[in-house]
């Protein structure tokens, strides 16, 4: 079976965290970037040709992924391609995913026409077996398979694409950008369809100045009766990191061992860029409780209910609770931090006090000194 992958790296934003990077390159879970999860899903399923569509701020993403060797994607044939605006036929950024795809049509010229395409979005993290999704897609005989997750819709969260099934499992309603009630399934922005159909639908939409994946390609085509849809409801864990609040909550959810298992081990290992840091040193006076800790740390203070990324320094007397502390950040002596996200390369001067709330964590931008 020939399958190509597409990962959208930045079709959302998370304020200060995505200020100078793509959604795909936002750090997550101590040692990963968000894009690692779909790259690992695709790599584990044997997908050997993957295009990464990004519209801006993609330097950090390119730096992270490099040749793709960590994911086994540094190949003679296929491998990874960055479909950046520069590589696309027009140099301006795109309005919606369909424009991104349209500009990258050359990517689809590779390989035979009878291929399938899996499209994913790096804001939604999961560890799933794409081969079972592909097999279900083929077995269904439908045009497009949408992977969904139950329990995400709650009447408040705005869903990109919400689907309601009737009692016999057929699609009763599809809505876009909709705060759907809890009897809807949330699309995981993960689709399977044939390459030829994707090309045709993208061209049809672009020809009519339509560029929105969910509204125009999925909902529009379905309403006009042009396509049939299959729903694959994923029973495992899916983390929708579409806002700072969700990102923060999902990060701290990793302190639960079941959640860690479901995200890191459920179907396959998750690969990321190797950084060759030394193991973390826990000092004589340190007190680390209920934390996820990456390599390279130098811990002298006390930290609880937090995630510490690579090469973090926590000086003696610092008290940290419910925080995310990213790579190479230094927290000085006797600081007190609660509900704070410290981005990479931040320096917190000794004695600083920063107190956020669970719904509104304080974010200190990359490279800042406080």
């Amino acid at each position, binding site marked *: 079976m020939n399958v190509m992958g597409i990962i959208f790296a930045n079709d959302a934003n998370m304020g200060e965290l995505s200020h100078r990077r793509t959604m795909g390159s936002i750090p997550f879970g101590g*040692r990963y970037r968000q894009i690692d999860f779909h790259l690992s899903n695709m790599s584990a399923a044997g997908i050997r040709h993957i295009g990464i569509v990004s519209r801006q701020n993609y330097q950090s993403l390119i730096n992270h992924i490099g040749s793709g060797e960590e994911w086994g994607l540094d190949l003679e044939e296929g491998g990874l391609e960055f479909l950046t605006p520069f590589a696309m036929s027009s140099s301006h950024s795109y309005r919606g995913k369909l424009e991104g795809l349209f500009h990258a049509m050359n990517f689809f010229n590779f390989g035979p026409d009878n291929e399938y395409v899996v499209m994913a979005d790096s804001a939604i993290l999961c560890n799933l077996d794409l081969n079972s999704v592909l097999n279900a897609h083929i077995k269904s005989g439908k045009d497009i398979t949408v992977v969904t997750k139950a329990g995400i819709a709650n009447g408040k969260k705005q869903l990109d694409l919400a689907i309601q099934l009737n009692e016999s499992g057929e699609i009763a309603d599809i809505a876009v950008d909709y705060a759907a009630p809890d009897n809807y399934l949330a699309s995981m922005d993960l689709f399977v369809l044939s390459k030829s159909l994707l090309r045709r639908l993208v061209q049809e939409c672009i020809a009519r100045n339509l560029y929105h994946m969910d509204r125009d390609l999925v909902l529009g085509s379905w309403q006009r009766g042009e396509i049939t849809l299959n729903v694959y409801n994923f029973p495992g864990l899916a983390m929708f990191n579409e806002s700072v609040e969700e990102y923060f909550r999902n990060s701290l959810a990793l302190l639960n061992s079941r959640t860690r298992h479901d995200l890191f081990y459920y179907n396959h290992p998750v690969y990321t860029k190797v950084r060759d840091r030394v193991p973390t040193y*826990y*000092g*004589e006076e*340190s007190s680390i409780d209920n934390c996820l800790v990456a*390599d390279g740390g130098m811990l002298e203070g006390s930290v609880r209910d937090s995630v510490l990324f690579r090469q973090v320094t926590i000086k003696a007397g610092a008290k940290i609770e419910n925080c995310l502390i990213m790579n190479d950040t230094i927290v000085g002596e006797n600081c007190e931090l609660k509900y704070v996200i410290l981005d990479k390369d931040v320096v917190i001067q000794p004695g600083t006090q920063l107190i956020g709330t669970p719904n509104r964590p304080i974010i200190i931008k990359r490279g800042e000194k406080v």
Partner: protein
Amino acid sequence: MLVQKKRCIAMLLAGGQGSRLKVLTEKTAKPAVPFGGKYRIIDFPLSNCVNSGIDTVGILTQYQPLELNEYIGNGQPWGLNKTRSCAQVLPPYERHDKKSGWYKGTANAIYQNIDFIERFDPEYVVILSGDHIYKMDYNAMVEFHEKSGASCTIAVRDVPLSEASRFGILNTNPDNSIYEFEEKPAKPKSTNASMGIYVFNWDVLRKALLEDEADPNSSNDFGKNIIPGLLNAGHKMMAYPFDGYWKDVGTIDSLWEANMDLLGKEPAFDIRGDERHKIYARNNALPSSYIDEKAKTVNCFIAEGSEVYGSVQSSIISTGCTVGAGALVENSVVMPGVTIESGAIVRHSIVGENAKISRNAVVGGVFTPEEEKAISVVAKNTVVETGTVVLPGEMR
């Protein structure tokens, strides 16, 4: 056939059994023994090569090579898999003239790979061994060698006089030139111990290897034959003093000590160091470590992929280990993939890869600071059953 002209290449002797590490090297070559939470011993010389700008390394393997070969792979973790670099594993092989077979000694191992070295037409060859923990700039040593105009330069370090008779001792003139070499002398005249790191002019070494091979009485060893031979032949030989951290981890005690040297606020061996002296290793795809609310982690190194629910003090916990609730690990080296179940106690021990210390088992003992510590060892893949006691100094 000349592949590519190189000024300097390295040959890493990694074939020894390391029999003094006993159960730890029963199925593993010594250079592949885990160290410091996420490394293996061979990562140190290999990373030193890369950090010294030496991009061509021949690795001589012989004893239990499977794991070592797999670990080295194509040299990718050290960046030795590029167009202009290589990490080439060199096992013994059979030759048409039958003048080959198992490596008879360190010099014979290099002799049998003269063809490999000739492919790079080097000026200098650095000879290294795969059983030392240290960070060193080999390039500085090669520069020293070149400037001195010597045929051979040997790295030396100052050892206490009481220990000097365990080493090869180099007696030098004030200008660091060597006038005498004594292998493990009963009455050492100096405290300049050879570190087993040599830089040779390749033409000199090549000739010496051919002559050594032709001598039926030679044990084909660098320390016993090649070095004294060159000295007697009147070659200029220099001692290159090195005062950084260096440890031969050839015994259970020294392996344990070297691991303990990583700990503390100002560790004896600062493995962190600066970016230019990073130690590279083959990495596992494991998530970050989880430290539970009830866990106690004091003065320890914990590598990624571990889950700690119990108490860990003054210890090294390697990649992918689990320390269960109520378990106690003290003054120990826990190698990758080990499970220590609830209530188990591990003290003054080395626990081999993927071993399991079952519930309430007790491994090792407690010692006063004056007492000599008897380190207990649990071999790779061994299960210490529930309630079992492994005595201080015992091996399982």
